[in-house]
């Protein structure tokens, strides 16, 4: 049971999707099946989390020969880094399915299940080719969901996100193949397993462009400023569950990839890129915040807000001290939950008002107090309200930034201020004041509250008692950090 538990977690949703598809299940069974797959997966992840030993590196690993002629192995495992994202995806799926309760288009549900498999697989795989497979596969459901169920110029935007992301993946594939070849050259056999490849020494020049292949893929996925042109259009035309997956999980996978493969394979080379990435992240931090302030469309606004915060996480990663690293990983989790909450609220707003433009909302607080409460809570937790997890995480990153360099610390600290600015201004215009449209609407229903309460609780617990969670991943981050610092000899 324990040997195959990760495999089960990865493939259970896909298995359900295939079975339901073959049986041509009607919409009721499809919904029930999807929900069941999400719940069972969540239970399995809880089992993994309970048996997880923070002081032990890679656990529950499974290593089977797969394509022997190419040396590709089915090699999966979980450590603190991947456990965080694994826990996130499995925690967020059930609320999403509750949100999709009235969704009667079958393709939607199948895509969500395939998507879960793709993302989970990418997080857990430790073989580069396997990782690449899942990394690409998770794009397909997003492509279909934006293109088929989106709004606005969705066909165009879906093509755009796919082409941009695949451009990154292709450069990554090239680097993967070259690394495999280097291994073949030194060891005499093909292998793409991370633990084998980490021992490789590349000559500095090669290493720089090999790293570039990976960095491009991750920079587009995050997206760092300059690689972000797909983000706002895709977020604004994607259906709510797809937006949530994209901003809460897939963008984080870019960070995860940077952490796992960037630091794993190219630790000494990254010092070459560190100034560039730190600059891009700082520019992104401010640029996205400014865009968010001026944005009238709620979806786009929080797309930019999410970009700003992801830049902060990426920044934390390259500051290479334990505060920043802990903060980054913690922020991955709390930001994902908060984003899920706010995008769910935006989805509910759209259902009620058929618009997400701030200028056509307003006056909601008088008629729908519960709605207002949840909306404001999630929005404020995005801004880093003390008492929510985001605050702790941002504080850690800012402390790390001050330790790294005073001025970078100052610039990083502005993120909290700018977030406050656009969030409060948005809340004032969107929720309070007088109504700018004549829609009849209802307050939150019980089902919607059930969907939102766990997210609120999670945000509060992570904010009030971070000491419950941080010991889970701090030891491993400490070890990884030591390794990186040893390789680069001091700061990046």
């Amino acid at each position, binding site marked *: 049971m324990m040997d195959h538990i990760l495999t089960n977690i990865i493939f259970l949703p896909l298995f359900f999707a295939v079975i339901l598809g073959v049986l041509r299940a009607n919409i009721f069974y499809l919904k029930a099946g999807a929900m069941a797959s999400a719940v069972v997966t969540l239970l399995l992840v809880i089992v993994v989390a309970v048996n997880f030993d923070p002081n032990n590196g890679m656990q529950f690993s499974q290593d089977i020969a797969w*394509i022997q*002629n*190419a040396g590709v192995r089915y090699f999966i495992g979980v450590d603190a880094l991947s456990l965080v994202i694994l826990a996130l995806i499995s925690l967020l799926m059930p609320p999403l399915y509750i949100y999709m309760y009235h969704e009667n288009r079958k393709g939607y549900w199948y895509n969500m299940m395939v998507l879960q498999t793709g993302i989970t697989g990418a997080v857990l795989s430790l073989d580069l080719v396997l990782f690449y*497979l899942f990394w690409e596969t998770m794009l397909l459901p997003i*492509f279909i969901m934006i293109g088929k169920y989106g709004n606005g110029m969705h*066909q165009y935007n*879906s093509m755009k996100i796919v082409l941009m992301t695949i451009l990154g993946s*292709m450069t990554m594939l090239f680097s993967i193949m070259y690394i495999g070849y280097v291994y073949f050259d030194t060891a005499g056999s093909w292998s793409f397993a991370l633990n084998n490849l980490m021992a490789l020494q590349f000559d500095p020049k090669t290493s720089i462009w090999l790293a570039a292949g990976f960095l491009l893929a991750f920079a587009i996925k995050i997206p760092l400023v300059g690689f972000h042109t797909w983000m706002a259009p895709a977020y604004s035309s994607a259906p709510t569950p797809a937006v949530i997956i994209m901003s809460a999980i897939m963008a984080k996978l870019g960070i995860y990839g940077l952490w796992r493969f960037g630091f794993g394979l190219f630790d000494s080379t990254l010092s070459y890129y560190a100034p560039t990435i730190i600059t891009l992240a700082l520019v992104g931090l401010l640029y996205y915040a400014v865009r968010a302030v001026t944005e009238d469309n709620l979806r786009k606004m929080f797309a930019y807000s999410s970009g700003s915060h992801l830049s902060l996480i990426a920044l934390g990663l390259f500051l290479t001290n334990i505060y920043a690293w802990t903060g980054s990983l913690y922020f991955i989790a709390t930001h994902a939950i908060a984003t899920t909450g706010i995008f769910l609220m935006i989805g509910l707003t759209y259902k009620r008002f058929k618009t997400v433009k701030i200028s056509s909302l307003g006056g909601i607080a008088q008629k729908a107090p519960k709605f207002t409460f949840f909306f404001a809570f999630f929005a404020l937790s995005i801004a880093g309200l003390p008492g929510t997890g985001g605050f702790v995480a941002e504080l850690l990153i800012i402390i790390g930034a001050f330790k790294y360099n005073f001025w970078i610390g100052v610039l990083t600290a502005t993120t909290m201020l700018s977030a406050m600015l656009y969030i409060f201004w948005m809340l004032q215009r969107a929720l309070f004041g007088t109504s700018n449209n004549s829609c009849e609407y209802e307050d939150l229903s019980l089902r919607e509250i059930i969907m939102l309460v766990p997210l609120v609780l999670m945000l509060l617990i992570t904010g009030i008692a971070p000491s419950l969670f941080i010991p889970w991943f701090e030891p491993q981050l400490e070890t990884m950090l030591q390794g990186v610092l040893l390789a680069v000899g001091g700061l990046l």
Partner: protein
Amino acid sequence: MMNQLLLASPMAVVIIGAFVLMLISHSKRFNNDRFNIVAVAFLVLSLILQYVTYESQSSSFLFEKIFADSFIMDDFSAIFDVMFTVGAILTLLINTDYFKSRDYFTGEYFALILFSVFGMMMLSHAHELVTAFIALEIASLSMYTLVGYHKNNKVSSEAMMKYLILGAITGAFFMLGTALIYGAVGSTSLTQIAEYTITHKLHEMTLLIVGATFIMITIMFKIGAVPFHSWVVDVYHGAPYPITMFMASTFKIAVFAIALRLYLVNFAPVNSFWTEILQVMTILTLIGGSWLAINQSLVKRMLAGSSIVHSGYLLIGISSLGLGSEVAAPAVMFYLIAYFISAVGAFGILSFLSSQQQTQMKYEDFKGFATRRPYMALTMSIFMLSLAGFPSTIGFLGKFYIFTSAIESGQILLAGLGILTAFISVYYYFKLIAMMYFYPSKTPQKKLPIDISTILIFMMGLLIIWGGIGTTLIPVIPGPDGFIDMAKQAISSLR
């Protein structure tokens, strides 16, 4: 003697089938359906005989006393024979409706398909240059006729003339090359040529190199490599759909059967001479093919353009061969198998669909296809993904092997260009998927029968997925390892 007859029987059955079809083609009792069944029956019989007579890892000459070493039977030719026969069977079965819906198809059509299969099989067995030329011409002549089969259609006739004239001229180069090689070696037998190339130094073989370059021109023309590509898009466009399918998937591969044999064994010592030529040609083919494919509005023309790009990938593998990459030869072989399966499927669906309408299929005609026929759309998406080299399909592994072989032989820029064109190809393949899924259907959904065509197409789709991610759990159906093992075995039997 009996044994030799048995070995020859797969080829013999096909040619006998062709003659039988010729004889009965004017009988009033037979219609297209029956001709189709007869043709398929002969091909299946040939397939069974191939299975029965197949001996693993044995290499022998057919009727050595009569033909000397003109015909060789080895794993390499066996795997090609299977692809040709299966390709023809699929062409015939998937297009059953197409033959019914067009009245210009007559009995000779099926005979010509069998003739061309015979020519291709002969080509894969050929171990002597004149035999190879005759085989190539048998296959090509049938193809010329088939391309222009829709006599009253201007586009079809134009395609035929274009293909015939250009093909005949480049075919002459093969003969010229053979003559020059004969002048140098004193024989046209591949055994003698191999001995000659091994025992002589590079600068002593000028005549042979010139001759082999001429042969290469013919081969490049047939696979549509760029300076010789001008016919591809028009001919694929003009030919009836089933013929396009047969040409793009099966006939294209046949040319590689002789090309690989020649350049892997007999001309191996002089391969380094062509490195630069091949590299330039590869770059041109990749870029030119992408250029052709990217701005087409007819799906058929897009696939025609993209088939040039696929020739480009194969050329990457072949130029890696010349630089001494060990993995290149199986990589090329694997890519051929992968391309064969994907192209048969993609063109198969296209011609299956076009049997129901008289005009050419545009991108727009696929709007809402996923609502009308969800399973067919899913399968088409799989073919597109495989052609684009998306992971979890066999097409990805094909590209993976080709690019790693290029990296291994030090052609990093070529691999980079391959990646770039693969990226470009994502655009035109995904455009079709977008058309199928993103737009509502104009015509209402109707219940369509499940027939042999749809089942075959669906099975090709499954094979592509299994070939990409399959494990050894089901040993009967070859997964990624099974296919590459086949490819390796075929290549190793050449030496």
